[in-house]
């Protein structure tokens, strides 16, 4: 009974510009290391092939080194890898695939299905019907030829395609690369392995999106998995097991702070997030000086725990309490200035007032500290 690993959307070469450089590097690295894990898993589960449904590379002109690294990462599994081209890495006249071939980086067990032709693996008992993308923009259903494609009797017919199933997916940004949801039927496919949707999703028992093995954006639609597919016999329903393999969950948090207990809750929340997560925190509301100190401390701790922590505090206004002001010993006109800033944080020019307030508060606190020592 043939067994496969189904994966897609590796997006090798993607860079994360909005992160700090260290984090960006690590996240880019993570995309390669997950391949290694997939290879390990494939060997472990003794699969007959690994199906990669497109968007292997994030761009055509990734560096030579990146190309080699990818194929190196696949080394741990020596069985067949079948890869098709997606929209990011379309098989154009000149593409990352032709480059890879020129570099002789493609190992023998890596089958590049760059033309819509049946690929038979008779010994293993299956045939692959690939629908690779060969243009920058494709408007037609590239899986159409499946319907008339002939394969040797007795071989499983496995479709491998990259696109958006019509009528099912909510996003219509991909008006390109449509795929008929009935394809498995009309083409008598035992399994249609799809790519392009980054979350694991079942369309029907024979048609699945594996999703990207390493999450690459904040939208939560169940990424970070590979599918272990067992197909008992020709014509039977495949048994699909979802195996998590990603390392870095991406978590978005948005909170509103009004009272100090909100802050405590937030800090607690943060602490519960898993390590190595990629966290984006957005806060708004009000916070006292003391609260701000607490928050800063908590964020500093969290930063070390997470793979990456980004926070947006632009919606948070600094409202020093009477005690705060007293503690600052801001007498005379300095105190007036603080009051002025405090009131000015809402509305136009609020940001600069907030920042000025923060600077003033920190300077006064520093003086306090010095005064205490001196």
């Amino acid at each position: 009974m043939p067994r496969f690993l189904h994966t897609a959307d590796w997006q090798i070469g993607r860079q994360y510009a909005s992160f700090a450089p260290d984090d960006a590097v690590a996240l880019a690295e993570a995309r390669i290391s997950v391949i290694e894990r997939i290879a390990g898993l494939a060997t472990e589960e003794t699969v007959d092939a690994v199906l990669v449904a497109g968007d292997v590379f994030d761009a055509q002109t990734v560096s030579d080194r990146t190309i080699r690294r990818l194929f190196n990462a696949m080394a741990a599994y020596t069985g067949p890898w079948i890869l098709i081209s997606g929209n990011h890495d379309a098989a154009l006249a000149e593409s990352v695939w032709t480059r890879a071939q020129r570099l002789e980086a493609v190992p023998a067990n890596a089958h590049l299905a760059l033309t819509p032709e049946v690929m038979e693996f008779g010994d293993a008992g299956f045939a692959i019907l690939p629908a690779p993308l060969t243009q920058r923009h494709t408007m037609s259903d590239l899986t159409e030829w499946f319907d008339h494609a002939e394969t040797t009797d007795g071989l499983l017919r496995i479709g491998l395609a990259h696109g958006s199933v019509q009528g099912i997916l909510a996003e219509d940004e991909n008006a390109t690369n449509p795929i008929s949801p009935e394809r498995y039927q009309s083409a008598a496919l035992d399994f249609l392995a799809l790519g392009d949707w980054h979350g694991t999703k079942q369309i029907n028992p024979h048609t699945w999106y594996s999703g990207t093995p390493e999450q690459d954006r904040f939208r939560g639609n169940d990424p970070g998995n590979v599918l272990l597919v067992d197909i008992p016999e020709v014509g039977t329903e495949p048994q699909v097991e979802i195996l998590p393999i990603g390392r870095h969950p991406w978590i978005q948090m948005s909170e509103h702070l009004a009272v100090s207990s909100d802050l405590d809750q937030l800090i607690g929340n943060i602490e519960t997030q898993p390590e190595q997560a990629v966290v984006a925190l957005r806060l708004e509301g009000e916070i006292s000086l003391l609260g701000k100190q607490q928050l800063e401390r908590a964020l500093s701790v969290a930063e070390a725990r997470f793979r990456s922590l980004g926070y947006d505090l632009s919606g948070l206004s600094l409202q020093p309490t009477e005690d705060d002001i007293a503690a600052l010993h801001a007498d005379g006109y300095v105190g007036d200035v603080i009051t002025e800033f405090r009131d000015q944080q809402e509305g136009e020019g609020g940001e600069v007032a907030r920042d000025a307030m923060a600077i003033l508060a920190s300077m006064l606190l520093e003086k306090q500290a010095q005064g205490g020592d001196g």
Partner: protein
Amino acid sequence: MKLLRLKAEQLRQFRAPVEIKDLEPGINLFTGPNESGKSTLVRAIRAAFFERHKSSSVEDLQPWGDSAAVPTVELDFEWEEQSWKLVKSFLKKKRCDLTVDGAPYSGDDAEEKLSSLLGYEFAAKGASKQQHWGIPGLLWVEQGAGQEIQAPVEHAGQHLKAALGGNLGEVTSSTGDELINQVTAERAKLLTTTGKPTGNYAKAIADVEALQDQFDALQDRIQQYRQQVDRLGQLREEQSQAETERLWETYRQQAKEAEARLNEVESWQREQDRDQQAFKGCQTSIQTTLELLSGFHSQQQDLARREDEKKAAEQQQADLEARKPASEAALEEAKQAHEAARKALKLAQQHQQRKELVRELEGIDAELVNDKSKLARAKALHASLLENRQKQQSQQIDPQTILRLKEVVSALDRLAIQQDAVATRLQFDLTDDHSVTLDGQSLAGQSEHLLIEPGEVAIKGVGSLRVLPGGEDVAEIARAKQSLTDEQESLLTRLRVTSLAEAEERLKQLQTLEQAIQQDESVLKELAPEGLEALSDQLQLKQARKDALAPQIQALPEQEEDSPSPSRAEAQQESAAEALAGAQAANQTLKSELLLAEQALNRARQEWERLSNELQAPDRKQREKQAGEQLAELRTNERRLSDQLAEREAQIKQANPDALKQDVQRLTKSADAAEKQEESRRFELIQLQARLESAGAEGLEEQSAELKVELDRATRRKRELERHANALDFLLARLTEHRLELTRQLQAPLQKHLNHYLQLLFPEASLNVDENLIPEVLVRQGHGGEERGQFNELSFGAREQMALISRLAYADLLQEANKPTLIILDDALVHSDAERLKAMKRVLYDAAQRHQILLFTCHPDNWRDLGVVARDVDGLM
């Protein structure tokens, strides 16, 4: 605060106690000359308040040389209806006792009380200095320190602030000032004073820009790469299509077919040409044959012509021949005429020559006659000359000698006269003629004798008388006379004459002779300039010539009557010569014409003969006939060929070879083009492939993504710094704004008081104070409008005035805040002119309504109109 009584003892010059009582609430004027103790009194008051009683730095208080003294000061004053009494002594006995309405304080407590009342500090150790004097430092003006206002205000600062009330807050809140400094420093790291980015902020902006540029550049290249990839795909497609179609093969095939057809047509063309040639040849042959035939015909005509020609030539020759003798004859005639003329000419010439010779002969004859006479005369002259010269020679006489003779003679005459005059005269009248002798000479009669030398007169019978003529002169004269006579003798001898007259006569003769000689000589010269010989020779020559001429003349013929003149003869000869030449020429011409005519005749004859012979040839007829037959044949050929040509022409036209040619060209070119396109496409593909390979290797998109990471990071950093800079800017602005506001609140009342006094000095003037309440700018209404002057740039006197006014304003402020204000002025306003001083007095008077003022001066005259009685310090001691 009102000072009531002051007493000083053992203080400098006041060894004995000196007391001042009944001090007025307003102005108290103390006058006195220098060294009278005014300043000592001021020192006493200052010491009483400023110096700690325990201080050991107050030795200046001691009277000179008295180290055992105990300088003591007593002060009574009133404050808020309390009566304060202070007694302080220093050095040898340190003491400080204060009672406030009876309540006692002493030592340090007392001093604390005083300092907090008036607002000053004590020195931690040593003497009290300016920085300790606080408010009194501002109000108690020392000598020569009147114009200084900034330092006293600064030192009084804290106390002023403390005194002026808490609800005004801190003007220079030390926290506030430090903060402002800190914020300014922080801001300066990111923004320039004008608000432009600098430092890290500027760098961040630049970084973003640079990265953005790089990123954009990469994007362009990526775009280009994509376009090239698309082109690659396109080209591949085109290529595969072309491979399938293989258009060039089609074209080549078509071209081939067209070419084959064309070749066919061309072969027709060639045949056509050949036939055309043949046709042409045929026509030419026809032509030739026709010509031949006509040639035959014309030959006949020719012969006739030739005959005519021959005849004409014969005639010609004959004519010329006929003319020959005449020409000869003419020539002969001309020759003869010419000869005759020549002869005539020669004769005429000879005549001429004879004539000339005759003339010459006659001439020579004449000359000879002349010459002969000349020669004769010359000879005569020569002879006479010779004679005369001889005479001259013999009669030579020296005129100089004669002259001398003349002189001598006249001298002698003179001497004689002299002698006569000088000589002793012996005059006698004798009756007896024989008895008297003079020098042996008898004397008789009546006469006189001149005696120029001693003479002896002998009288017979009597004896002798020796007469000695006296005188030197006589002797002299006698001597002279003698010498001259001698000379005369010699001269005469030399001249060989006997007398002067003779000599002169001889001379005259000689002169005449000389004249004659000269005359003769000149005439001779005329006659025979080169001498007699020459003249003689010339004569000889001429004679010889004459002799020669005679036979010559004989030889020449004589002229006849009608023989022509040489010129006419010449003319005749010339014309004869011309005629001769003409005749010769004519003859010559005739000869040559004749020659030509003979030649022509020969030719004509030859031609005629030849032609005649030809026409006689036997086979001529034959050939003529042949030619006729040939002609007919040729005509037939011609027709045939013509038809053939026309037929083929039509054929060829139909086939349209031009079009075929174009087709071949077009199709061949098309095939070439198609192949070329294929080639260039292949080439482009290769190039493109190579370019894409190398570009791909660059990993542009990966680079771009990495760059984006950096760009975003740089942008975030820029944004952070931007926010930080803006916040600092804003913060600084707000802090300074607030501080300024606060200052203004303090400035206002001070300003008010200042201007109040200033009006008394400068109407409509104002003195602006800065944020530290120190006078800064004086604004006046001058001649040309508003005048602004910096305080520090005012004159010494003006500064004194402004400073004093400021102090008074401070005093007013303090008073409003219920603080004590005692004003002490030690020799103030020394640099003010009379005008200003007047105004200042009004100011002081006004201030004195509110404050007690102690005014010390050594110029009592200046202060008489203050409205107070001056106290003489001098009189205190």
